[in-house]
């Protein structure tokens, strides 16, 4: 099934670039939600050179990635089969995630999963999922509505403890676990990557607020930004 909206982002599929529209799109500028921070320049700022080595918190805004919101009935065997055949990932159990290469599937709610992937393959993955799925489901591209931050460093868990009421101790929040929770005064999707690395997905319109919050919360530990 190819509905009108599926002609989206055809130009974003790397390697096509045949038609004029596709070529034009490959030169269209894009901005992440925290583009205005200019992490690349900030990471070279003199204060970063002074404090960077001793900083116990590291922050990076990840490049734009594809993000698809998948809704469906987890009890349907066909759903899990379709997802795994197209993405190579298993439909995770509650609060879990499955990751391979540049793709990650996160359980968000009893009938909701978020699939992240390289931005160039979001359209193709969505199309192939639509071909493989049937019945009552929904796939919505929400890529531009969120940004993904990587919070790392030996004090990164301390920053989390200051920011959220969720128990982020490793016995409750091991690698692979993903929760949606209150962080400061905004909601985020928080995933543990390992003992001192966390992924924070936040809405575009709250990204700057979160950036300000993380600066304040990290100050006592020293913050180094990477680009």
């Amino acid at each position, binding site marked *: 099934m190819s509905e009108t909206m599926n002609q989206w982002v*055809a130009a974003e599929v790397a390697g096509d670039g045949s038609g004029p*529209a596709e070529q034009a799109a490959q030169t269209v*500028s894009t901005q992440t939600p925290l*583009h205005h921070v200019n992490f690349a320049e900030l990471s070279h700022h003199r204060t970063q050179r002074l404090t960077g080595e001793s900083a116990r918190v590291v922050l990076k805004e990840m490049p734009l990635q594809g993000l698809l919101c998948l809704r469906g009935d987890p009890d349907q065997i066909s759903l899990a089969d379709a997802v795994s055949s197209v993405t190579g990932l298993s439909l995770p159990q509650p609060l879990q995630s499955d990751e391979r290469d540049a793709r990650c599937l996160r359980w968000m709610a009893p009938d909701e999963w978020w699939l992240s992937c390289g931005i160039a393959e979001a359209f193709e993955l969505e199309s192939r999922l639509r071909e493989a799925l049937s019945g*009552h489901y929904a796939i919505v591209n929400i890529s531009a509505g969120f940004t993904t931050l990587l919070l790392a460093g030996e004090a990164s868990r301390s920053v989390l403890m200051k920011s959220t009421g969720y128990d982020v101790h490793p016995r409750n929040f091991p690698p692979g676990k993903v929760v949606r929770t209150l962080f400061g005064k905004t909601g985020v999707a928080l995933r543990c990557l390992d003992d001192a690395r966390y992924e924070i997905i936040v809405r*575009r319109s709250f990204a700057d607020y979160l950036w300000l919050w993380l600066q304040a919360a990290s100050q006592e530990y020293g913050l180094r930004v990477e680009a």
Partner: protein
Amino acid sequence: MVMDDGVTACLSDNHFLMSTTTGGAAHVLSWLELYHQTEWPELDVYFTSVTDHWATLSIAGPNSRELLASVCDDIDLSADAFGFMDWRSGHVAGAPARVFRISFTGELSFEIQVPAHYAMGVWQALFAEGERFDLTPYGTETMHVLRAEKGFIIVGQDTDGSVTPRDLGMDWCVADSKPFSFIGKRGMQRADCVRPGRKQLVGIRCTDPATVIPEGSQAVRDPQEPIPMTMVGHVTSSYYSAFLGHSIALALIKGGHDAEGETLYFPQADGRMLAGTITSPVFVDPEGARNR
């Protein structure tokens, strides 16, 4: 009662894109989920917020079609091919886009919707091409004036939760011809909702064209009435219209739809007594010619 207003587009047989009044998306989503879970759980439907995913750039004015054509070569923008309240899919300044021909300004207007990470690039491309049209950005204050000149309401400003579509003169958007019932159908037929004397949306022309009647001003029919005066409504939106060269206002006035031409008085706290005439709420281009 009117709680929100917005545009819904049909994307395919089972796919709709809903927009709401500013800041209203979460509220409307909550109601959709509530009704789905409590009233119609048998309906197979999912709701997904895409508020942050889409950036919408609106271009308005007599040159908007020509400007858009300079950055969009895969959509036929002509009036015959692209009617009012239609949408098309294509590319604007190279970015994948949906273009909606809708207008909150009353001008010929196109709303260009792109995934938000493209927004600044498209904005810059529009301004590069727009220089020869004297393209200028406009903000919410200007937008408020433009929409008020056309009698377009803002939910929460011209409504307060006690106003029906009929009170607003918006019966046209209530589809009585639907083969099934809908939320509000019975409610709008309640005796209290159809009685005469309900507050109804009207325009107000201040007798002094240079005076902007303060929003919230209470209206009375008899300026000599001893206190407590009988209040018959209030001013909901009020601006100076540079385009018209005089002030304009929208107001909810009891029995207003049948009182065009009547003079009302608006006593002020500082002792002034302002006066205004009830008019149509559409001050500019009532034929809608500018939107073609």
